[in-house]
């Protein structure tokens, strides 16, 4: 795959640690906030674009390879947002150069990808789409639940975020607010270009450690209780069909609009 480092750079100790951790649950979906590229460059008295080159090229490829080795199935990366247009035009131009190069290699390899918008924007989109669906009588008010709103936000069904990893800062910055609301947060003080395999193993370890934490168990029991209450609510087959039909119609509608533009196969 074009985004992933082809060489396995792990040491034998790291491979042994990986095989040990694989005995426990591995997070299905991990999100990364790639923060600290510019500070990394500043520390080394290098230009900002050097930090982006290391962070968004070398390190990104390496981390994706590690995720494949660990068996993590879905990865989401926060690389750029609308707010980043406030940066210098030179920096923005360089970032887009990296992105278009990577996207082109990805497309050439025939891989699929998804680009998300900001979390609040996604939540708002989901809410608006469901409200409009109610107005068109495609669904009833009793059909509206967290499952429907969540899937109305997401144009491609995917697993909720199990672990969010952020380097150097301790906030979410309008990223995966809904998807990681009950997931594990792993804030690391290192800068993204310095993120190591041991840091990733630590994130997996913290995810697995929840099973041994008494406080987590108390909350987990409540979550399981809530989930069972929601599942035990008798939903009829017609309700299920209505919801699925609505969601499929929604996705088709948006995909049709995007395909009609014929610009890129990038979807939001």
């Amino acid at each position, binding site marked *: 795959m074009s985004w992933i480092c082809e060489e396995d750079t792990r040491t034998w100790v790291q491979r042994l640690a990986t095989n040990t951790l694989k005995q426990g649950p591995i997070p299905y979906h991990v999100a990364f906030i790639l923060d600290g590229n510019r500070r990394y460059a500043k520390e080394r008295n290098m230009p900002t674009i050097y930090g982006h080159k290391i962070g968004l090229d070398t390190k990104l490829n390496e981390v994706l390879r590690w995720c494949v080795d660990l068996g993590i199935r879905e990865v989401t990366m926060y690389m750029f947002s609308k707010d980043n247009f406030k940066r210098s035009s030179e920096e923005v131009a360089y970032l887009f150069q990296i992105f278009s190069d990577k996207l082109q290699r990805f497309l050439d390899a025939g891989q699929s990808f998804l680009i998300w918008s900001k979390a609040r924007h996604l*939540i708002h989109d989901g809410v608006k789409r469901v409200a409009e669906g*109610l107005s068109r009588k495609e669904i009833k008010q009793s059909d509206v639940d967290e499952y429907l709103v969540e899937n109305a936000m997401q144009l491609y069904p995917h697993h909720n975020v199990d672990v969010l990893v952020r380097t150097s800062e301790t906030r*979410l910055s309008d990223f995966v607010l809904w998807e990681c609301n009950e997931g594990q947060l792993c804030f690391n003080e290192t800068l993204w270009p310095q993120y190591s395999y041991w840091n990733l193993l630590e994130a997996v370890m913290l995810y697995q450690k929840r099973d041994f934490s*008494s*406080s987590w168990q*108390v909350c987990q029991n409540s979550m399981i209780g809530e989930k069972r209450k929601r599942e035990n609510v008798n939903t009829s087959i017609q309700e299920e069909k209505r919801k699925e039909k609505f969601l499929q119609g929604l996705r088709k509608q948006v995909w049709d609009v995007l395909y009609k533009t014929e610009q890129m196969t990038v979807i939001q």
Partner: protein
Amino acid sequence: MLRKAREWLQSKVFYTAWLVIHIAYQLQLEIRDFLRFNLRYASKRLLSCFPLYSPQKELADFVEEVSKLPKVPKHLAISVIPESQESVLSMLLSKLWPNQLHSSNINNNKKDDDLNEINFECDGVNLQTVAKIVAWASAANIPVISLYDYNGILKTRYKELGSYIQEEIIQDFWAVEKIKGAIEPPVVKFHNVHKTNGYTNGVNGTKSRDTLHIFVFSRNDGKPNIVRAVKDIYVDKFERNSNNPAVPMTSEEKLIDENTLDSYLNRYNGWSSHIVEAKTEPDLLLILGNVKSTLGFLPWHIRLTEIHWLPSLKRVEICDFLTSFYKYAKCQQRFGK
């Protein structure tokens, strides 16, 4: 056959190593936490024999240090993780031997012992400690505090909590009065709770007094409120329009944007436009306990919130609070720049 046996042995060895790593990691966390707390306690007891330490001096130092910080949160959120009555060791043992009944026996005995004692705890949440933490935040001049626990224990017991908070604020008021020259302790006002008589700490506050706004949340105020907003938006924006075709809605009234959703959610949260001291989004979220998750805390409102972890309710101290404020004062929000 030999290969299968080797694979079986390998998997058992790796599984045992995995279990040992986790047991060791969890135990070292618990031991470190235990030692840190008890060493601190022992040193305080020792220093109090000489006039080098007193809880009053610690509080006065805290208020003074916070007043010097360049940046203090105006809206502080505190997520309380309930303590389990089960010991970590019994949980680890249950992983090794799933049929172990040892843990349930321990729980039953603990309940019997607690019957004769005054118990401030409600389902693992010590309300007096929560009140103490709120009082520290008030002493740090934070006007808006959001309290959160997954199960809604704080929401159910807000009156009891309110009386503890008032006691603690009055008890600590001397430090605020001395350093900041405040005249009266603030009025405590609860929002987002089921009020029978309009609960504002039972005291008729005068207009000149500061108000400490306390919002109390549970899991149901998070994603379920967003679902509720969908239905209300549909009724207000679409159903109302179709029911009154003679009075069509303006384009502004029909608009559903992020501000619309924001206003609905803030309304459910009990946010009033009279609260001007802080924003609806918390500046800082403190999670009391070693659970690395927001556990369902208001997903819409934490997009730019700093998130810090403090020791659990039974171990948290004012110096941990101060350390978090130092860290908050140093952090920089770049907003994409």
